């Protein structure tokens, strides 16, 4: 089944099996997300892509596109809540962008910029989380984990290894490693695994690659995430150094594999919302 749906007044074609978010993305319409990734099974936990579909609230990453759907994504209310949800993620963990190796290549940070987030708004939780630097090539900084489940899915679905899992309940969620010691060094992960490169934040990092691209010359330094996600930006090789998963040709390939149409026609994005802060 294929057809057309309408997102914020823009007609968006979709092909069989596409979710709303993928139909939008391949048509150049950006709906923010963190736990979604083209070519991955939908998960629907971060709730950033919450949209109104025919008047009902739903997540664009899990809801199949259907002919004639009317989708509202950029209403002031939805944009406001999106910003708040992003701020919730920031206060839940410990995100020190200025000193983070992932700064400029980080989707969480880029989404926050897109949301025009200027502060954390909520009181910090000051979570106590340990770092796992045991593996020779891969580092896990649990402070930055947002429980998007992408590494879990990557390891299971792409690498066939099941290295990661998410344990705990409620605010006590934690990322766990499938190894006898619970340490990454004793797991089956290898630096070539997709799971080592899929993290949208700086929680899972490949060692000795953090500064191959200098700050200021990274993916989101040059292009807003709304363009990168929709593959409208041409990423120079150096920008994404150490992060092969951000290679746009790969993204395009995976979109192809998912039956995405290859015709990208640009749709103009609305400017960042003007959200008043403070009082």
């Amino acid at each position, binding site marked *: 089944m294929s057809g057309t749906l309408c997102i914020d007044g823009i007609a968006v074609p979709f092909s069989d099996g596409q979710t709303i978010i993928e139909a939008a993305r391949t048509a150049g319409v950006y709906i923010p997300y963190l736990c979604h990734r083209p070519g991955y099974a939908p998960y629907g936990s971060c709730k950033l892509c919450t949209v109104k579909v025919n008047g009902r609230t739903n997540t664009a990453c899990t809801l199949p596109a259907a002919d004639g759907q009317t989708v509202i994504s950029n209403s002031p209310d939805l944009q406001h809540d999106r910003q708040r*949800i992003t701020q*919730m993620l920031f206060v839940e963990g410990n995100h020190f962008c200025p000193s983070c190796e992932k700064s400029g290549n980080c989707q969480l940070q880029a989404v926050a910029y897109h949301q025009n987030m200027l502060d954390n708004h909520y009181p910090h*939780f000051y979570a106590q989380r340990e770092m796992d630097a045991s593996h020779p090539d891969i580092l896990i900084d649990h402070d930055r984990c*947002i429980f998007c489940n992408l590494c879990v899915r990557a390891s299971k679905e792409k690498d066939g290894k099941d290295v990661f899992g998410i*344990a705990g*309940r409620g605010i006590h969620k934690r990322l766990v490693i499938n190894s006898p010691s619970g340490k990454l060094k004793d797991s089956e992960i290898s630096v070539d695994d997709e799971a080592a490169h899929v993290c949208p934040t700086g929680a899972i990092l490949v060692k000795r690659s953090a500064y191959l691209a200098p700050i200021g010359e990274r993916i989101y330094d040059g292009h807003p995430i709304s363009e990168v996600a929709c593959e409208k930006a041409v990423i120079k090789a150096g920008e994404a150094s150490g992060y092969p998963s951000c290679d746009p040709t790969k993204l395009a390939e995976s979109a192809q594999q998912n039956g995405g149409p290859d015709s990208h026609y640009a749709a103009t994005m609305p400017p960042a919302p003007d959200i008043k802060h403070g009082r």
Partner: protein
Amino acid sequence: MNSFIRSVLAEADYKPERLLQMLRAVQAQYLHIPNAAIEQLAAALHIPRTQIIAVAEFYSFLHLTPQGRYDIHISDSITDRMLGKEKLLNYLAEKLRVNVGEVRADGLVSLNNTSCTGMCDQGPAGLVNGYALTRLDPARIDVIAKLIEQQAPLSDWPPEFFAVEEPVRKPGLLLNQPFENGAAIRATFARGLTETLAEVDSSNLRGRGGAGFKTALKWRTCAQQTATPHYVICNADEGEPGTFKDRMLLDLYADQVFEGMTLCAAIIGSDQGLLYLRAEYLFLYEQLQRVLKRRRDSGLLGRNILGHDGFDFDIEIRMGAGAYICGEASAQIESLEGKPGIPRVKPPNSVICGYQRKPTVVDNVETFFAATHIAVQGGSWFAEVGTAQSTGSKLLSISGDCARPGIYEYPFGTSIEEILQDCGADDVMGVQVGGPSGTFISNRELQRRIAFEDLSTAGSFMVFNNSRNIFDIVQNFTDFFAHESCGFCTPCRVGTTLLKNQLRKIVEGNGAAVDLEELNEICLVVKNNSHCGLGDSAANPILSTLASYPELYLKQLKQSSFTPGFDLDATLAVARRMAQRDDDAAHLSQVEN
């Protein structure tokens, strides 16, 4: 340990979907889930150890570190608190020389709070090694403390400590109707399966778990699915604080509940049923197994039921392990598959893709119970009672400030006022209808009615008189949701804790007007963006009391445009203690403007 785990695996037939049952057995044996057990189970079941860790950490009654040989939980429902639970808990901690939330150094005893154990009509209540304790008082606690110090086995404890009464105060349409085992199955086959489904349809029976989905539509949809097998699940995870009517049904009417599942199985074409029993109702487990055995022996379960060729159906009981969210149908299915209880993404609905990804009917205990009478008496008998949109009767679990707590059955459309009169409640401040996820009704709205079109409820009905503090109630409910959030989605995982903290700030008198505004805003973010019903209703206690009693909230606020979020002087307490002085000069007066 090796051989014990092997026996546990054999008992569960090496089926990974029975992981919860296996972990419950391991927990009971070793007082926690040891690493060696995790390794052995993961290898034998071919599942990643992360799944076992995730399950062990998700459920309240499973632990990765050893608990006491007497593991005591005290129910922290608001009704238990109203019966003096806090004092008793402290007394118990003192008697047992253990802090709440800790294991005593000698490993003999551990003491914790737990969410409502479904004994609100006979609280303060608790659990010892999973078994329900009712009507706790200082005298009982003295005896319990002694028995524990003597290391007396539970079988030597006074049986009255474990006695669960089922006070049916006002039977109605269903509870007054006599029933003979097998009658509903016989009537179903005599009338015909399609015809019986039509009766369920014309009865307009709607799901009694609270959501009110039309039962016949659910059953018909499932019956029409081509994928096989089909499953019947009875949702007995009665976790909503203040409700205990399923406890009563399973205690006194288990045969009928199983019969309701059996006739559903006949209609949807299922040969396998599951009863998901909440961990807190462990005391019913053996008794329910005996009922199942008796039904098998009398041809009401098993192969060719009542001589109907090819109608095979049996029921397995699976225990939960302490998680309110497992009352949500898709979370329950995840739990039944041996995973953490995280609600699934919908669509597809469980009726199309449920247990083991097959078409599944999940219905509440009371729904199956009602279906048996409809099968015997017909749809119009049922539809004549109640209102147009809410036919039949509803079982209510009434607790709190009333003379006669217990089970009441009312036709839908009954007013709150009438119910309050029946249970002997006076000087009423308000009623929480439908538990924390339901609605708070102040004494200015008592003419409202129990019905899907007005006040829908799964059965919880908590009464509060004018001596109660509204904030004690709202905080208890808000903390409950933060404790029970599964943590899958951002707005609920983070938002419920933000709500808890923000409410505390205001209640403790540290809030300004802007904080009240913020509280309201967090409510809306959580409500409008969460993944499932828990997040959708987590803010209800605050929102509904904000609407009913705005003046009380305003009274809590500091009358200033700027309010520090903390007490400056209190932060100096450590310094004062170290300096060993407490004179006036060592104190700050909080800056006020």
